[in-house]
């Protein structure tokens, strides 16, 4: 506990508040003593990205905290010793070394064991495969990976073509980086075209693998309506070519029957990390001019990267729907760009994924189950900073961009996205811990932690989109991907800057309008 701490509000430049800083096991809490109404600022230790000590000012010792959810807090502490203590404690608390120290293992919402188990069973991927009509004549759910022998970053159960027998699966896994073989991500029931995902082939300059070729053939033949299939490498061509020198690379069109190979240049995690950094610098500029903002935004390249991801998603959706062709997608390891692109394409094609439940399934399926390394990308634990990258943030932003273009097509609103984004970093729930299913099993998260989804469903009322027109109103979405269609997402990157938001919140108005309507309906039915 440190008293006499000032909190500077960087937008309003208001006279600094004076209050007390508390460090608990999980949170940093600042209580504003000067305000008439008790005002508290809570910052979760896991949300803290960086803590910086700034040069001494007349007011005291400044401490600048940047959070992963783009919150920024600027404290000024009276005593140097206090400041240093807070600083070192925060450094330790914000970057635990052992997974057991993560909040999820101590978080106790006073829920019964049964309810916790029910919570974990809320999302069942098998139900989603059933919804797609799997198993069917062409696809089956196999437990070939039950002991993680094929691939230790895949879940035990995967969906592969029926025609691909175990030998093909095993053979193909030896030819794919980290054994991440082609598996089904989404089946478009209307025409049997499928979206599949994998990692890059270990082709080098000339290597080939018969089983891998058979695997692709099996995928293509699982869609009898199309004579060819696409193989999409989401990396820029140069990056993919460079990988060949390391014995990896991309598919040679001559070796595979009837494939159409295509590069979609989405940049790698390092470029994205730097881009976000530049974007945040623009956001932090105090009262930028129009020109500062526009050029800064452009130079960050952020919206260009978002567009690249969206373009790839649109390409996939079009290939499946319009060309009726199956698509196999990969990047390097097939857990970053591939996850973004596959989940986006599903979202464009299938209105189910635009509901609460569907969106949860989508994240469980394409991100959590398929081994997106949340722990590394979000920096949950003290680790290599070069592994951190806003891959999931970009996906969430793509969804938001779609909401802007199609305001009535999502059951949930922006706050739902922000909640999820917060909890990806908060480590309060087990869902996003670790890097893959196997690791989560080892951590015993299903026994020791809670699942996020039931908690979000409880808050459904405030997270719903009052403009939603229902499940059947819109099928496929065809977003416009010209550069001017992409907007800066103030609600995410300047979320904690109250001064940057539109004054009037239409969402609240509409939500109240809807509840007013429901009240009237109740009145009317009572009278009847």
């Amino acid at each position, binding site marked *: 506990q440190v008293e006499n701490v000032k909190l500077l509000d960087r937008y*309003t*430049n*208001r006279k600094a508040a004076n209050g007390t800083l508390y460090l608990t096991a999980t949170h940093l809490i600042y209580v504003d003593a000067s305000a008439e109404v008790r005002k508290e600022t809570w910052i979760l230790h896991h949300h803290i990205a960086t803590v910086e000590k700034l040069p001494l000012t007349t007011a005291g010792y400044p401490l600048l905290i940047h959070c992963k959810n783009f919150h920024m807090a600027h404290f000024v502490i009276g005593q140097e010793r206090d400041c240093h203590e807070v600083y070192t404690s925060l450094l330790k608390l914000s970057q635990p070394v052992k997974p057991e120290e993560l909040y999820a293992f101590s978080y106790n919402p006073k829920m019964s064991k049964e309810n916790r188990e029910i919570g974990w069973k809320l999302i069942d991927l098998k139900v989603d495969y059933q919804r797609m009509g799997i198993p069917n004549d062409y696809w089956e759910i196999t437990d070939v990976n039950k002991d993680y022998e094929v691939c230790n970053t895949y879940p035990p159960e995967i969906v592969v073509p029926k025609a691909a027998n175990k030998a093909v699966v095993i053979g193909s896994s030896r030819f794919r980086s980290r054994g991440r073989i082609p598996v089904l991500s989404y089946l478009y029931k209307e025409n049997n075209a499928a979206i599949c995902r994998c990692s890059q082939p270990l082709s080098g300059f000339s290597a080939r693998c018969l089983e891998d070729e058979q695997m692709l053939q099996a995928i293509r033949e699982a869609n009898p309506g199309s004579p060819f299939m696409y193989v999409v490498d989401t990396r820029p061509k140069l990056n993919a070519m460079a990988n060949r020198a390391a014995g990896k690379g991309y598919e040679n069109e001559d070796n595979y029957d009837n494939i159409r190979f295509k590069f979609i240049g989405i940049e790698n995690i390092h470029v994205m990390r730097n881009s976000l950094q530049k974007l945040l610098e623009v956001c932090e500029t105090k*009262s*930028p*001019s*129009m*020109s*500062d*903002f*526009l*050029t800064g*935004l*452009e130079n960050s390249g952020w*919206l*260009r990267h978002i567009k690249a991801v969206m373009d790839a998603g649109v390409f996939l959706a079009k290939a499946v729907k319009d060309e009726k062709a199956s698509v196999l997608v990969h990047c390097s390891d097939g857990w970053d760009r591939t996850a973004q692109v596959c989940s986006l394409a599903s979202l464009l094609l299938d209105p189910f994924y635009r509901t609460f439940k569907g969106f949860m399934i989508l994240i469980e399926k394409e991100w959590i189950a398929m081994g997106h390394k949340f722990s590394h990308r979000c920096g949950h634990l003290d680790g290599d900073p070069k592994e951190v990258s806003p891959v999931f943030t970009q996906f969430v932003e793509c969804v938001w961009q779609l909401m802007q*273009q*199609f*305001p*009535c*097509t999502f059951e949930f609103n922006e706050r739902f996205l922000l909640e999820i984004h917060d909890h990806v970093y908060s480590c309060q729930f087990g869902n996003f811990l670790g890097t893959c299913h196997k690791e989560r099993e080892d951590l015993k998260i299903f026994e020791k932690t809670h699942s996020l989804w039931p908690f979000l469903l409880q808050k459904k009322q405030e997270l719903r989109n*009052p*403009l939603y*027109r*229902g499940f*059947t*109103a*819109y099928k496929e*979405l*065809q*977003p*416009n991907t*010209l*550069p*001017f*269609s992409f*907007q*800066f997402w*103030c609600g995410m990157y*300047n979320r904690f800057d*109250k*001064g*940057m*938001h*539109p*004054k*009037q919140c*239409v969402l609240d*108005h*509409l939500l109240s*309008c*809807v509840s*007013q*309507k429901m009240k*009237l*309906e109740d*009145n*009317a039915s009572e*009278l009847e």
Partner: protein
Amino acid sequence: SPFSVLGEIVVNEVNFVRKCIATDTSQYDLWGKLVCTNFKISFITDDPMPLQKFHYKNLLLGEHDVPLTCIEQIVTVNDTKRKQKVLGPNQKLKFNPTELIIYCKDFRIVRFRFDEAGPESAKKVCLAIAHYSQPTDLQLLFAFEYVGEIYHNPAKKVNGIDPGGGGGGGIGSASGQQTPLFETYSDWDREIKRTGASEWRVCSVNEGYMISTCLPEYFVVPSSLADQDLKLYSYSFIGRRMPLWSWNHPNGSALVRMANIKDVLQQRRIDQRICNAITRSHPLRSDVYKSDLDKCLPSIQEIQAAHIKLKQLCVNEPFEETEEKWLSSLENTHWLEYIRSFLKHSAELVYMMECKHVSVVLQEEEGRDLSCLAASLIQVMLDPYFRTIVGFQSLIQKEWVMAGYQFLDRCNHLKRSDKESPLFLMFLDCVWQLLEQYPAAFEFSEMYLTILYDSARISLFGTFLFNCPHQRVKESTEFAISKNIQLGDEKGLRFPCVWDWSLQFTSRDRLLFHNPLVPCVQNGAVKTFKRSKKNYSSTLRGVPPALKNGIISEQEFLPRRNSLILKLKPDFLQQTESQSNSMEQYFRDWFAKPVDLHGVILPRISGTQIKLWKLCYFRWVPEAQINHGGFITAFHKVSLLADEVDMLNRSLRQYKSNSSLQGSCSELDQSRMYFRANSLNDTSAAPDFLSSSFPFSPVGNLCRRSILGTPLSKFLSGAKIWLSTETLANED
């Protein structure tokens, strides 16, 4: 006949014309007849439009029609001879055109091909369009033709409406209110009373435009200024434009517009007298804050240059080229930056009136350009009445039409003015920004703003045709004499008024002007905006007796000390600083409070909040369209929601009144919404035709624009240099 407008005659026409939809493929092209009338160019086709299924139509214009006043540039091409020429008025054309490209002021580009058409007729139509769209004289504009016909045949009325009526306020069946035009003494008097400006009076010295030809006949001045003095002072002002009162704040502060004083010797004295008079009209006798708009806002030339760049960017540059640098290209136009500076400056002046309780004088060279925009914007922010449809229209009458905004020159209706500048558009854009930030604070929708902008380029309405009211009287009297029209007591001919929306749209289509969010947030209780009573401070109204004797107590002295006008004070600089601090404080406090939609609204002006008005600038660009998406889908859903709430309220009322009166049945039929709910909880699919461009349709317009390898943008007026050098070789 498609040419239903009275006085409209076909000048020339050509058959077997192809309207191009795309440049690379002709399979979607439409075949038809291209007609040039004295009002518009028209393309009449039997081919149904492939996609357009909705029936939102302008009663004066067909789907493919372009009013002549909307044409910006006409380019003729002969691709076999590789010749191209921009057609000015009275020019010859030495080749037979195979192609005609029309650039419109609303950012549309239409292109016709004459491969199968008679070469001579094609040429004649092109020349006719060039001739009729670039008249040598104001009286040659179609509106005169039309009005002449009306006066000769009073029985004929277009669409059954008497164009002489002028007022025409109501746009929906519900509102029978008329838009005050401020042509009469009584309109001004009512505005004085509405705003409680008791120390101001209507002045009629300019009756018959005896003093100034660019001022209205009636305007409002401080009560303490006598007509005799005003006449005397008027000589010192540019254009004899005496100070014009615009509006009064409930706290007694006035908004006044004033031209510069050209007489250097008299400058100080007259300025002092005017300011004293304004001070005397303030209940607190507080000082006057002067804002020199020429110094703190972009000039009309800069705004025009920004507009040209914006047009290039939005319409002409192939999007592939701007892919990487869209944001910096947008920045390079400066358009948003200028929008921001108008919003910012207006908000600062709102602060002066609202918080410092001082009267504000907008000073500008002639006082009829930037002042129109600033004065209206300040009033939109301060007075909720101007956020209603009738109020907004009256604002445009008061601050633009009557105040002598030079619509003729600034809109360049005669296409020969170097004074063109899109100030009016910039105003609408600024209002759109406010609407975007306060979606429930306005009675009207962005469709209304866009259609209003379009209406300024239909040469039928007198509203946006002239440089000032006197010009209408003068020109139309001359015209009447030449056409043997008996004017009687009337001052000039009466042209149809743009506020007579029934001339352009059916009552059902006019429902689209309404913002469906408004009833939602008002809980269905209040249907109309009212000037918030609680803003009126009765303590300020009732002037303490001490003040009346000219003695100002210490307490009342405070606002004086803080005002900026006291330039003579030595601590002026220090004051400016504390001024700007207290201004920041005011904005901070205002933004910290919940917004009162019936009170003041202030704009957010950070870079993230100023946006490009896509509906207005992108609606004709096929590539920019979002099918089944865009803001309109939200508008649609909100309309249904509001309609359902209305329905429920109505049926509840019926239950309560025990369905005693059958009269409520007719009420049930009335919906304020353009989109209606079929039933409660209507979850059916949104109509297929909804796209981000609705109610406009880019279908049938050109995409991928280049011709003979030259990007079409090169032909635009923004690239005149190119035309004078490079084309000469190609020209006939």
